[in-house]
């Protein structure tokens, strides 16, 4: 039997984050679920006033909101913090609004930075920090350049935090997953039907979290793709160029 853990998940109101929350709930863990929606719109027993922390991660003070919630709940140690919330934009670079660039930078990069900084005292000793990246960080992404760049920055942040060794950190890169994300960012939803479900991907993510790899890619095809994107840059660039 695994002992009960305290697990914090950001972006836990949809997609992969919600699927992760369900898995940890079945394990009997103490959940802290962070999202931007109001509690009354979330009709699911997962979310209660003791588990759900409302914080808009695109805002400057988001880490304060989370810490206030932890204090109110008298939680002073976290075993696992999964920074999963993410957003994007799909379309021509010149058409992307300033607000969209700001939001992606804030949610995908600033928020993990702010939360990591704020949560360090809670994660001391046995705690683990997980950053949810994306295999797109290893590719040129002409239609979602800012998103991929934010994920590459996150990957590098994790790598260097690991070397600094003040915190136990892991970076997990999922590949394409069937969630609401694509619709939210303005991408064609047809293609996403073939992607694996959020539940399946979340299951694999929890396996990776139970393991010890610093960087884990979900699925062997994705691991290969990521390897090619990083180490055969020229070939991959040429392939993307012609499609």
């Amino acid at each position, binding site marked *: 039997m695994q002992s009960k853990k305290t697990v914090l998940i950001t972006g836990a109101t949809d997609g992969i984050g919600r699927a992760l929350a369900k898995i940890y709930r079945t394990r009997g863990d103490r959940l802290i679920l962070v999202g931007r929606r109001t509690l009354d719109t979330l009709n699911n027993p997962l979310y209660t006033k003791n588990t759900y922390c409302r914080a808009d991660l695109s805002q400057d003070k988001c880490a304060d909101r989370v810490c206030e919630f932890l204090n109110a709940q008298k939680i002073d140690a976290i075993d696992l913090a999964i920074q999963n919330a993410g957003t994007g934009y799909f379309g021509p670079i010149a058409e992307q609004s300033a607000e969209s660039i700001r939001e992606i930078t804030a949610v995908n990069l600033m928020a993990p*930075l702010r939360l990591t900084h704020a949560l360090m005292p809670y994660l001391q000793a046995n705690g683990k920090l997980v950053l949810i990246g994306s295999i797109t960080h290893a590719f040129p992404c002409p239609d979602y*350049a800012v998103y*991929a*760049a934010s994920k*590459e920055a996150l990957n590098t942040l994790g*790598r260097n935090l690991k070397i600094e060794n003040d915190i136990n950190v892991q970076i997990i890169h999922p590949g394409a997953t069937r969630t609401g994300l694509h619709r939210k960012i303005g991408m064609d939803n047809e293609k996403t039907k073939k992607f694996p479900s959020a539940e399946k991907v979340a299951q694999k993510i929890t396996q990776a979290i139970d393991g010890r790899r610093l960087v884990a890619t979900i699925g062997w095809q994705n691991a290969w793709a990521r390897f090619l994107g990083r180490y055969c840059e020229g070939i991959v660039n040429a392939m993307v160029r012609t499609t």
Partner: protein
Amino acid sequence: MKHAVITGAAHGIGKALAHRFAQAGYAITGVDMDTAGAARVDRELDARFVIADLRSDTGIARVLPKLIQGKPIDVLIHNAGINAVGRFSDINIETQEQVIAVNFYAPMRLTAALLKADRIANGASIVFISSLSHYTSYPGAATYAATKSGLASYARSLSIALAPQNIHVMTVFPGPTRTAHARRHSPQNTREEKRMPPEKLAHHIFRGVQKKKHLIVPGATNRMFALLGKWCPPLMEYAMRKVILEKL
């Protein structure tokens, strides 16, 4: 007369770039927040400067109309950059947020807005100054390293997105360069003479633009470290920990 826009052009690498491109006959527009430094470069080169702080949206909002009303841009160099050195937990979060704002957010904002306003000329080059840390890692400057890798990723995507419009994109990964920036942020400055002079780096960048290269790691030693870091990360990470992190 061709037109080059260089951010952070009052000092260091940006100033050397301003000189190098002016020498090749470019009209220079600099962006910087140091009024006195900008005035000096202005006198030397008859450059035009926009004084603004790229850490803030208001700063970016000051720069954009000036550039959009100006001449079409043939070379745009995102050079302004700041660092914050120390263990991640020791550096206050506001400082780290500023590093992201200047190094990562501002270049993307400027690029998107200038493209939208059609200010980037046909055949132009957009240059991003990343850092060798992209290959070697940089413990003791985790946020800085994150922004520089993020910038390299953005440039890689941009390069493909803009190829049909005949706009060239180049990423530069400089190693240690003899500037005030390097002096401020290094544990020791005893071997400062080993750092590449900014004038030499500027020349590499100028040549890279002429040859329309996509990636450059200037200097043979830096190239060797980049290769080691790329193909054998643990080795470079170990070295960076010894040389930088443990000396902080």
